[in-house]
């Protein structure tokens, strides 16, 4: 890799930011253009194809009956997996998920799980014996930065449009998956002391670290993750949280609400 070019590009980005600009013309707290199409895979119980700028992620949800965990005999199970398939970027290699794939899956998983978005009690079929296993599979198709937000948005959009395949397993009529909140993941980087939301690939590479904040309809936060080899001041951290919660509200109301018909009461 050309490290000289890297440096030049980085300086350019920093100088832009100091003049109040981003490389693609967005405001500091703007997301790239965001499109979400749901029910794109008919073999999946739920699916969402997310385009976030040039980043593309396909999330599929599959359900099948299985055993509950011993310590939660009356609750459904969420299993989240992310594949950074080599089709999506020259940096990805074939093989089992590396630390980046594992982190992506676990952050998406925590956002769904900790928000309580999915009513797991309603996914119990027979206490201690049989519950619905919800597989959330993140399939990255084109990596142009900020995979976490694209994947997390895909996950909640897919879940909120998932039907439980009761009929296939002789368990009555198909039902809507009981989703009762729309957690939204918002990731930012700190460049030149500014909080830049939804970094693209260039910004992601130039910044030394990122912070992801996943927040809910009521403004509470249910998951956070700092990534990258740099550090953040307490002030920037707190500021990022505030901006992220605002942005999440915006996306929830302007994008997700158009995709998701209705939610369960909490």
């Amino acid at each position, binding site marked *: 890799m050309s490290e000289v070019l890297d440096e030049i590009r980085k300086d350019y980005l920093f100088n832009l930011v100091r003049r109040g600009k981003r490389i693609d013309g967005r405001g500091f707290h703007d997301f790239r253009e965001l499109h979400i199409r749901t029910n794109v*895979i008919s*073999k999946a119980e739920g699916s969402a194809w997310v385009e976030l700028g040039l980043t593309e992620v396909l999330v599929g949800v599959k359900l099948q009956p299985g055993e509950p965990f011993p310590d939660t005999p009356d609750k459904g199970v969420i299993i989240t997996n992310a594949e950074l398939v080599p*089709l*999506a970027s020259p940096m990805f290699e074939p093989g*089992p998920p590396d630390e980046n794939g594992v982190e992506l899956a676990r952050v998406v998983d925590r956002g769904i799980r900790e928000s309580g978005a999915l009513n797991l009690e309603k996914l119990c079929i027979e206490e201690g014996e049989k519950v619905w296993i919800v597989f959330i599979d993140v399939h990255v198709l084109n990596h*142009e930065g900020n995979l976490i937000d694209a994947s997390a948005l895909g996950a909640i959009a897919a879940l909120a449009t998932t039907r439980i395949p009761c009929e296939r397993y002789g368990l009555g009529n198909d039902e809507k998956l009981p989703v009762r909140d729309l957690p939204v993941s918002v990731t930012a980087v700190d460049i030149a002391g500014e909080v830049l939301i939804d970094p693209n690939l260039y910004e992601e590479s130039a910044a030394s670290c990122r912070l992801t904040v996943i927040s809910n309809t009521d403004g509470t936060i249910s998951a956070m993750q700092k990534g990258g080899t740099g550090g953040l001041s307490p002030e920037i951290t707190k500021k990022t949280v505030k901006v992220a919660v605002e942005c999440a509200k915006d996306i929830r109301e302007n994008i997700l609400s158009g995709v998701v018909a209705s939610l369960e009461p909490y």
Partner: protein
Amino acid sequence: MSEIKLIREDGRRLDGRLPEELRPIKIEVGVLKRADGSCYFELGRNKVVAAVYGPRELHPRHAQDARRAAVRFRYNMAPFSVEERRRPGPDRRSVEISKVSREALEPVIIAEYYPRAAIDIFVEILESDAGTRTAGINAASVALADAGIPMKGLVSAVAVGKVDGQIVLDLMSEEDQYGEMDMPVAMVTRTNTITLLQMDGRVTMEEFDRALDLAIAGCRRIYELQRKALIEKYSESRAEEGGV
């Protein structure tokens, strides 16, 4: 012979197709921006996307071939692409498909132009409904062209089969499952060369000959669609470049 009737009384198949009819096909070129070339391909309900990276550096070094580029092919099914959720990672089926698909494409790739390099072809099956390996080869062939890899011709692929005693083109899921024979074929139309041929089931020699002829005719039709998609893309981009 299966108990399920796969050919209706009017001679049409369960989805209304005639025996020699293909399912609807949709081809989009250059859909993924990171890849050097890419193609989205739909065949009925099958949805596949192919990306090509390369020629690029090949690691590890001792795997490099001083005479030509190494062509690598990875066929991978998304976990949600099938009825029962599939565990991620390669299984024996996908290892075999990756091998025969690569061998279906290698005859047209002029790998000698890029000694020591790698040409990587990745096919992701997003939704599966019988015919994913041929759909993947079709997509990969277009993606190779889109990536500007020098080729002797396009590779086109389709499966033929025998259902209710009849030779039919482009098996759908039920025909694959309950039919008597399944035979995926890939061809280079320009050179009239077969580059993939697999079969399982039970047919006579005469039936095989007819099936092969039908497969070749099917590949020709797909070839025309591949060409058309590429021409459209190129004229589009030329228009874009020239325009404004």
